[in-house]
Structure formats: structure tokens, C-alpha cells
């Protein structure tokens, strides 16, 4: 006699969701620990100069130097008195560097400022051993 085919039992497969919360919080903690707070002081009033040769920077910078439209100099977002302070600051940050990739210093300056204001700062960064990453804008973005 031919056996009647047995009906397959339908099994419910429960997805384990109990640990989802833990995973999510672990992800949050991971991002919080690994992320770096931007030290770029965006409230500095700067009109950037234009050049068709600017490129997006891929290398992390060791320090950020900015000169706003009134000629005030900022080193990593903190106002400093002059180019000498920038030189000392950059020199201190670059003391333990081992490769050229660690010597990049971002330089942001208002386009209208005269040479007397920005050139001493550029020289100070160069004297301290920094490679200048001058920030600008592309006229044809």
C-alpha cells in the first residue's frame, strides 16, 4: 500500500532580536570613541580666494591656522597674538612627527588681506616645518 505523504510541519524561525539593543548601543559607543571633534572654527569670518587648482584634501592636518577679515590670527581655533605664536605652536605639534604626511598645516586666510598680514604667518609655518595646505575655492565647482 502506498504511503500517504506526511504533511510537513511548519516551523516558525524566530529571529533573535534580544541583542539588537546591545549591538546598537555598542555601535553608538564605537562611533563616539572613534570620531574626532572638528577643531575647525567655522565662525571665523573669511572670504576664501579662488583658484582652479584647489583639490579636496585627503590627508589629516596637524594644525589649523586662520586669519580672519580683521587680521586676527587663530591657531586651532584659539586667537593668538602674532606669527611667532603660530611658529611655536606648529613646532610643538610637529615635534614627534616621523613622516611628511604628518606635517600638513591648514592655512585659511581672507582673500582681501594684504601681504604684511599673511606673509609672516606663512613664513612662520614654513619655519616650523609645516607643509602649507592653503584653503581656497574653485571658481567652477
Amino acid at each position, binding site marked *: 500500500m502506498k504511503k500517504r505523504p506526511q504533511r510537513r510541519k511548519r516551523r516558525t524561525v524566530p529571529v533573535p*532580536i534580544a541583542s*539588537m*539593543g546591545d*549591538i*546598537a*548601543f555598542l*555601535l*553608538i559607543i564605537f*562611533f563616539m570613541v572613534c570620531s574626532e571633534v*572638528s577643531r*575647525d572654527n567655522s565662525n571665523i569670518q573669511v572670504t576664501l*580666494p*579662488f*583658484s582652479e*587648482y*584647489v*583639490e*579636496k*584634501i585627503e590627508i589629516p592636518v596637524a594644525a589649523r591656522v586662520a586669519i580672519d577679515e580683521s587680521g586676527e590670527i587663530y591657531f586651532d581655533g584659539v586667537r593668538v597674538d602674532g606669527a611667532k605664536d603660530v611658529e611655536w605652536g606648529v613646532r610643538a605639534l610637529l615635534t614627534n612627527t616621523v613622516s611628511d604626511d604628518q606635517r*600638513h598645516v*591648514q592655512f*585659511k*586666510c*581672507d*582673500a*582681501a*588681506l*594684504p*601681504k*604684511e598680514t*599673511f*606673509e609672516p604667518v*606663512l*613664513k612662520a*609655518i*614654513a*619655519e*616650523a*616645518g609645516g*607643509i*602649507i*595646505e*592653503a*584653503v*581656497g*575655492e*574653485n571658481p567652477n565647482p
Partner: protein
Amino acid sequence: MRKRYTREKKHRSGEIPTGSFSDIAFLLIIYFLVATTLVKVKTITADLPAGEKTSQPQSDKTPIVNLRGNEIFLNDRNVSIDELNDRLAALELGTQEPSKRVIMLESARGTPYENYFQALASISKHDGVVAIVEEDE
């Protein structure tokens, strides 16, 4: 007669409801992912090596870019920024040894950073090494 209070108090458990924790956490992750902006600025890399100051000229053949107000001079010839680019490209600085890649950059008092930046960008793009010329005091 007073009725005795016989009904038992409902047993309430003091457990914190954790069922929605994962939803909250994932919402937080999504919020941070959406709200985060990756700051990527556009720059030019200027090779401005630190060196000893010298009063002697580098060499007669060392090109000198001179910025006077809004005008650009290359070896005392008035050029536009496009001409400067073409002339620097013709020098093929990338193929030269480092000491021959030096371009001297001199600027008059009051030269705006806009012009300086464009000259610096042009020199850097064509693998030049910038040597700043200082004024005698």
C-alpha cells in the same frame, strides 16, 4: 459592620520596559549618520621649505614671480595668470632635480592674498618649490 478590605493589591512589577531600547538606539545612530557632515576643504599644497636667509641671489636662471598690486610679472615680464601657468608648465619642473625647481616669489607691499594665492597655486601645481623673497629693511 464595616466591610473588610479583602481585595489584594495588584502586584506591580518594577521592571523598566527595555523593549524599545533597540529602536531608540537605532534612531540615534540614523540621526547621527544623517546629521553628520564630513568637513573636506579644498586646498593647494605649497612647498615652502624653511631655509637660511641669504642675501645672495639663488641663480641668474631662477625664475622670479613678482606680484605688484594686481599685476603679475615673470622674470620682469608682465603676464596674466593663464600665461604664468603656461610658462611654468613649459619649464617642466616635475622632471627637474629639487634644487632646480625653485621659483622665487616676490610681492610688493599691499598685495592682496587673492593674487598671492593664485600665484602660489600655479607654482605648486607645476611642482615648483616656492622661495619667498623678503624686502630689505
